């Protein structure tokens, strides 16, 4: 099976690069979060480790690894271990279908930037994996055998499944226009300034709000509402096991930003002609940088919102999801459908 071997080698090389990218992106976002929150709250933030505290995330990782791993006696050991593995594993696996740039051509062979960005169901794969990541949080809450953890985990799962609906429904509008679930194809159709956000503004807003809820970020960070639930589902986690949830949360934030950019903001498509040939390494790198710049913008947006907007109450959160966003998303589909039927 020589061909299959080569496919696996190619996938393996890309996977290693992507995992390094995810982990460094998570580390940088943690640093950015602490710095930005400090600026917003008129503090200094981390500034001791390295210049401007830039080495702080690395120091944090080492600290987390060498911290004692305290597990309560009442906990279910197997599931207590499994939960962070599910969270982090899925956070990494989601990146399989994300295209970071188009392709480079070497010796007549095209190498795509992404593990499998051309598969027919790429967009649904991301949604499917996000829906499975609920287990990481539910099991963490249940296995800890702690009341705070259990309620944090339950609230979080109920919240995630509720907003998954509006997320899926808001994407339908885009699918009606693009007619494909392949992420590379969706990006290709948004050439120039033909971004989907201009034709799907309502869908975009619903998607943005839902992705805040899906990633458990403020104003939807109810599962970690410190005043009432201590640490939420990860109350009984310490050391790198806690770090794994932490990493997964920031990786999910990066995924959500990348997803928004790919579906609504043209992904890696450069809106102006820069005079580089298709398939050249230079063009691919410019596309990658352009994509990354947009993703970083959205990560900063996530951070900005977290330190500006107060937390919802749980009933407000559920009402928003079921009674506001869900009907609005359906309205968006009807409007898009009628529009396409009349003018399409």
């Amino acid at each position, binding site marked *: 099976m020589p061909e299959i071997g080569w496919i696996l080698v190619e996938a393996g090389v890309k996977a290693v690069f992507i995992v390094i990218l995810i982990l460094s992106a998570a580390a940088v976002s943690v640093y950015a979060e602490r710095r930005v929150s400090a600026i917003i709250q008129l503090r200094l933030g981390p500034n001791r480790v390295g210049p401007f505290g830039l080495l702080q995330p690395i120091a944090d990782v080492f600290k987390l690894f060498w911290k004692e791993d305290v597990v309560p006696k009442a906990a279910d050991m197997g599931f207590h271990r499994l939960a962070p593995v599910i969270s982090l594993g899925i956070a990494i696996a989601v990146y399989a279908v994300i295209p970071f740039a188009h392709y480079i051509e070497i010796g007549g062979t095209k190498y795509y930037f992404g593990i499998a960005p051309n598969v*027919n*169901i790429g967009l*649904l794969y991301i949604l*499917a994996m996000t829906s*499975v990541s*609920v287990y990481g949080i539910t099991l963490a809450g*249940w296995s800890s055998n702690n009341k705070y953890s259990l309620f944090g985990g*339950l609230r979080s799962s109920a919240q995630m499944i509720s907003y998954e609906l509006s997320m899926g429904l808001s994407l339908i509008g885009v699918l009606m226009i693009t007619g494909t679930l392949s992420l590379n194809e969706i990006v290709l159709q948004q050439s120039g300034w033909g971004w989907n956000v201009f034709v799907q503004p309502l869908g975009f807003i619903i998607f943005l709000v839902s992705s805040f809820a899906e990633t458990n970020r403020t104003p939807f960070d109810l599962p970690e509402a410190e005043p009432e639930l201590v640490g939420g589902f990860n109350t009984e986690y310490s050391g790198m096991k806690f770090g794994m949830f932490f990493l997964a949360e920031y990786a999910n934030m990066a995924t959500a930003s990348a997803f928004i950019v790919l579906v609504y903001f043209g992904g890696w498509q450069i809106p102006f002609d820069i005079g580089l040939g298709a398939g050249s390494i230079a063009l691919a790198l410019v596309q990658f940088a352009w994509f990354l710049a947009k993703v970083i913008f959205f990560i900063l947006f996530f951070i900005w919102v977290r330190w500006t907007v107060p937390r919802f109450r749980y009933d407000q959160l559920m009402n928003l999801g079921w009674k506001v966003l869900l009907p609005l998303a359906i309205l968006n589909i009807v409007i898009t459908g009628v529009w396409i039927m009349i003018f399409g």
Partner: protein
Amino acid sequence: MSLTLLLFLILGVLSIASAIVTISSRNPVVSAMALVLHFFMLSGLYLTLQAQFVAVMQILVYAGAIMVLVVFVIMLLNLGDEKKLSEKWNIRRIVAILFAFVLAIQFISIYITNLPDAAFIPESAAFNGTVQAIGTDLFTNYLVQFEAIAVLLLAAIVGALLLAKRKIT
């Protein structure tokens, strides 16, 4: 050995193993998680048949939605004493074993007569498994069934409400 056969063997063995864990484990949460794993393996098996849309639906609907409800219910019921649930020998068990035996004979007879081969997958499978092909089929040939599903789902909502509300009051 082709990739299809190789993946079929790996996923087949793992799916049977996880299914056995599902039905034999005394801890209901272990059973539920084994079933989630089983759905992942099934999804891989669908991929070997080139049914891409069904494969991702298997994860989205079964692993991501239905099993979440199952896990919630397990936690809701708080099954402390699982031993109470273990069944004694009864007529149902005997009938089940009989049927399992018949099913096994059927499988064996199929496997003896035709060995499974990658060549069995028709060329049009690559096309029929896509979202686009399923969309075309569902909304031309199966429209009535599609509308019937809406009514079925409505009945599900009403039924769930009826059950839940009766317990509250």
